């Protein structure tokens, strides 16, 4: 596309590139030979324009200066930045104080709770000790009772000294017969013979005798 080529874009005629005068060329004649005609304004009017312009200038100056001051104080000035940082630091210090208070209150609560827990532990230990003591005492009493009984019984024990006498007694005694029966009421029904095994033996003998006699006959 060449310079000053015209093309249509959204209804407005626009050239794609702007024609620039090259640097080596001198000032064009149309500009070089231009004669500016000074406007012929009357003095009164001139003074009035000057006054108005001066007024406008002073107003604008004040407004711009005021805006400058506001901007400096609000954001970008060093003092403002330092102040901002200081306010941040103050807020942090306040937070730390709050945190210290919180920690202290929690420490007090924890101490109380730990004391209570410790007391509870002590009570539990005491209870346990009491229970173990009772258990031990009961056990001891039982043992002592057993020993007492055994001591009482020890008089009837068979020892080396009185073993002969005991044997003699047993030998002298009549043999105990187990040949009996008991009913539900505990009544004892004794057998015909006191020693049934002997009876049986005797019976066998007698039967043999009978057989022999029969054979002999």
């Amino acid at each position, binding site marked *: 596309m060449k310079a000053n080529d015209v093309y249509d874009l959204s209804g*407005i*005629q*626009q*050239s*794609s590139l*702007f024609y620039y005068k090259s640097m080596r060329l001198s000032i064009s004649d149309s500009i070089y030979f231009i004669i500016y005609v000074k406007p012929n304004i009357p003095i009164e009017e001139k003074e009035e324009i000057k006054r108005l312009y001066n007024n406008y200038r002073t107003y604008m100056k004040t407004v711009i200066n005021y805006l400058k001051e506001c901007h400096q104080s609000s954001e970008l000035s060093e003092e403002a930045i330092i102040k901002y940082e200081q*306010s*941040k630091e103050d*807020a*942090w210090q306040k*937070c*730390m104080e*709050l*945190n210290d208070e*919180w*920690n202290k209150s*929690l*420490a007090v*609560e*924890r101490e109380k*709770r730990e004391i209570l827990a410790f007391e509870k532990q002590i009570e539990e230990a005491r209870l346990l000790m009491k229970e173990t003591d009772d258990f031990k005492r009961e056990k001891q009493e039982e043992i002592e009772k057993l020993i007492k009984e055994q001591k009482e019984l020890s008089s009837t024990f068979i020892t080396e000294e009185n073993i002969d006498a005991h044997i003699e007694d047993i030998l002298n005694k009549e043999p105990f017969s187990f040949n009996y029966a008991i009913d539900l009421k505990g009544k004892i029904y004794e057998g015909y013979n006191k020693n049934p095994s002997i009876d049986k033996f005797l019976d066998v003998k007698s039967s043999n005798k009978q057989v022999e006699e029969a054979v002999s006959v």
Partner: protein
Amino acid sequence: MPFKVGINPVIRTLKYLKAGRVYLNDKIKVFSVYLNTSDERHKGLRDFVTWHFPQIQYKNPDVHCIYIKNIMPTPFIRVFLDNGDDVIVDVDSKERKEILNHVIKVLGKPTFVLKDELLAKEKKENPANFGYMCTKHCICQILGQVPCPAIVPVPKHVRGKWIKESIMS
């Protein structure tokens, strides 16, 4: 608990992470939590870690967040600062919400700093803005506006030279 699929699906969603409220102070570099896995006194901190730890890490990507288990008898939060100091926040037998509010209050950024940062962020992020401290320094860079005459010359009926000529002729 609102768990539906997998392990903690709600906590791991981006929406949940963005909903976090803890913006830690700029001084804080390490955020460490000491807790035990089985103790009534540590229950609040355990809940805090499960629910808010991912949010804190998401909102403060420059802070190193860790939690250490079964080392200390009491639950607490220890924070290391940029100058080497450390701050301890005791949270013995406290509930999740209490811990969260205290952390926001003490370790978080102050409200006026948050406001300023939000404003600056809005200024930066809004594509409609142009000028000083913005991505576009002139309105001519915005699409749909009149472009700079250095790039595309203004139409003739707007230029003074052509207007003058037309009047003279």
